[in-house]
């Protein structure tokens, strides 16, 4: 298998003209494609979209958003998708397989982080436009891959911190829940919050830097039950996976207390939960940031532009915007589509109905 990939890589390199990183038009812009966005250039290509782990609602919607974005450009005449199924070796083999098949551009969600870097570099050096997104695999733009499209999660943390500062100007007790112990997303988010609410009047309670929940709803429930019992005053809960909280927050009610303020990422089930519970819980204010499905759209635009000779997007950064604020109503009040599944994301560009259809 390695030998075959090696031969294919050599063959692809031989077919390339000029530097390995250029493909088709390179940085030159060819004639635009009629009716298509300016990132869609004239050269025909095949594009591969790869997931490290495609098996949850968020990934399904993100993958569909990627395919939807690809469809806006008729120059992309072939589209392939591969799911690493949470297996790093399979994810690496998926990249190698795509290169061997002769795709011109790859958009990769490198769940395994730096472990994916050698495979990305290999594809890039074989002349395939290579664009990792969201999870940073390390390495450098233009050296190991064309560009990483994303942002560290400090922006989310800063957005949360700004809201906390506005709504609790005199300080607050804050419980921060994130995923597995030591995950960099949680650590970045905390760093972002501390740039805004770093002074002593804002106390982070519980295990530091965050309470680990493994992003598991049952563990979240157990951790929250314990935190409620231990801490008579919890003013704000911060969580980077809001939907996992809907089974846990009623623990406050069972303990005879109001659900406190919540800052988190969006989900339809959470918006509906807020609407069901805010009347009976006076402290339950909520602010969400967009969960970021559309990061993939920017990554696709960049990869397609590079490979087809279109106009590159003017940024490689994808900062998830603030989505809902129950206090100010800006940019949106809390949204809920209780006629649709809970696991859709109203912050995504794809319509709620189209998302719901994916999950049937």
């Amino acid at each position, binding site marked *: 298998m390695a030998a075959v990939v090696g031969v294919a890589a050599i063959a692809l390199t031989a077919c390339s003209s000029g530097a390995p990183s250029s493909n088709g038009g390179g940085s030159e812009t060819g004639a635009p494609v009629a009716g298509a966005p300016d990132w869609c250039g004239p050269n025909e290509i095949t594009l591969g979209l790869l997931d490290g782990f495609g098996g949850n609602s968020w990934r399904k919607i993100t993958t569909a958003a990627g395919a939807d974005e690809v469809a806006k450009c008729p120059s992309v005449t072939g589209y392939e998708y591969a799911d690493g199924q949470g297996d790093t070796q399979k994810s690496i083999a998926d990249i190698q397989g795509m290169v061997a098949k002769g795709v011109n551009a790859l958009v990769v969600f490198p769940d395994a982080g730096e472990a994916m870097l050698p495979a990305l570099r290999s594809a890039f050096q074989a002349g395939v436009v290579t664009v990792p997104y969201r999870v940073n695999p390390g390495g450098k733009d233009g050296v190991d891959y064309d560009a990483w499209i994303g942002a560290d999660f400090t922006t989310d943390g800063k957005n949360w911190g700004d809201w906390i500062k506005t709504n609790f100007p005199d300080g607050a007790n804050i419980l921060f829940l994130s995923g597995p112990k030591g995950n960099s997303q949680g650590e970045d988010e905390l760093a972002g919050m501390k740039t805004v609410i770093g002074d002593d009047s804002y106390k982070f309670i519980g295990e530091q830097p965050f309470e680990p929940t493994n992003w598991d709803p049952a563990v979240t429930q157990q951790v929250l*039950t314990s935190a409620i*019992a231990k801490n008579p005053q919890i003013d704000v809960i911060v969580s980077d996976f809001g939907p996992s909280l809907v*089974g846990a927050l009623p623990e406050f009610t069972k303990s005879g207390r109001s659900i406190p303020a919540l800052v988190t990422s969006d989900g339809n089930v959470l918006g509906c939960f807020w609407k069901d519970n805010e009347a009976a819980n006076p402290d339950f204010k909520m602010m969400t940031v967009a969960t970021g499905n559309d990061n993939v759209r920017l990554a696709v635009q960049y990869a397609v532009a590079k490979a087809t000779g279109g106009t590159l997007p003017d940024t490689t950064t994808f900062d998830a915007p603030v989505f809902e604020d129950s206090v100010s109503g800006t940019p949106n009040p809390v949204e809920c589509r209780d006629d649709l599944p809970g696991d859709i994301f109203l912050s995504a560009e794809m319509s709620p109905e189209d998302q719901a259809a994916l999950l049937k």
Partner: protein
Amino acid sequence: MGIAVVVLFVLSAILAPSSVSQGAVLGMLPFASILACVGLGQMLVVQQGGIDLSIPGAVSLAIVVVSKVPNGDNSVLLPAILLAVLLAVLAGVLNGILVGWLKLNAIIATLGTNALLFAVVIGISGGSPTTTTRLLQSIAGGLTFGIPNSVFFAVGAFLILTILLKKTVAGRRFEAIGANPVAARATGLRVRVHQSAAYVWAQLLYCLAGILLAGITAQPTAFQGNTYLIPGVAVVVLAGTSLLGGRGYPLATIVAALFLSQLDQFVLAVGVPYAVRSIVQAAALAVGVGMYTINWAALRARLFRPRVKAPA
């Protein structure tokens, strides 16, 4: 085991009073109930000298079926539960045939079944179950007389199991076969039927656990059953059931489930780092298992036997 639970609750009250507050106990009991159901199922299999490693797939499948199939529609909940029960029976029959009839190694065979069950999980859900119906949330997650409803389901399962196992001829045959299959066959008992049936009954109990867990967490993942594999075996061993087969101890299994769940709550309440929590849980399991599986008398005799004076 009962003494250990009392000691644990006393320690909890002294060292981490918040872990025995009403809110904490009400939060802990649903998870203890689920673990009790899983443990009772595993106990039946272990009584037959087997072991069942398909718990993760079985629990996850029940969750996915009762959340995905209704897709939020309460009126479809009952058919979904019936479908979950049917799939559980099929999984149990498969395990039963592989281990009871074909005599495959239980560890390997049930791991294989687990993989098949997860294939069905992903086939039905694509990896993403939907939100649990409100009806199931209130049935499984609600309170009656101030007690979580899941406790009543677990106690009901315990009572049914105890009556069948300890008060009926079939139950006593079941235990006899587990204790000594060769002697049982010699007396004309149908060994293979009972060994296979153990896996079916176990799957029904895992299914109950999955349905309760779906209701309690409201927004479960498709892999929610993964965390029940090791604890499911641990409660059986802590309860004193021999891994070689024979008598089962349903009450002790339930008490062991309560012990492990309260231990989790206690360690969380003490506030030690995550790594220390894992070590405490592992140590408790090691001590508990050691109490029943190490021959302490022989060990003591070996260590302290009188030294024979060397001949002059």
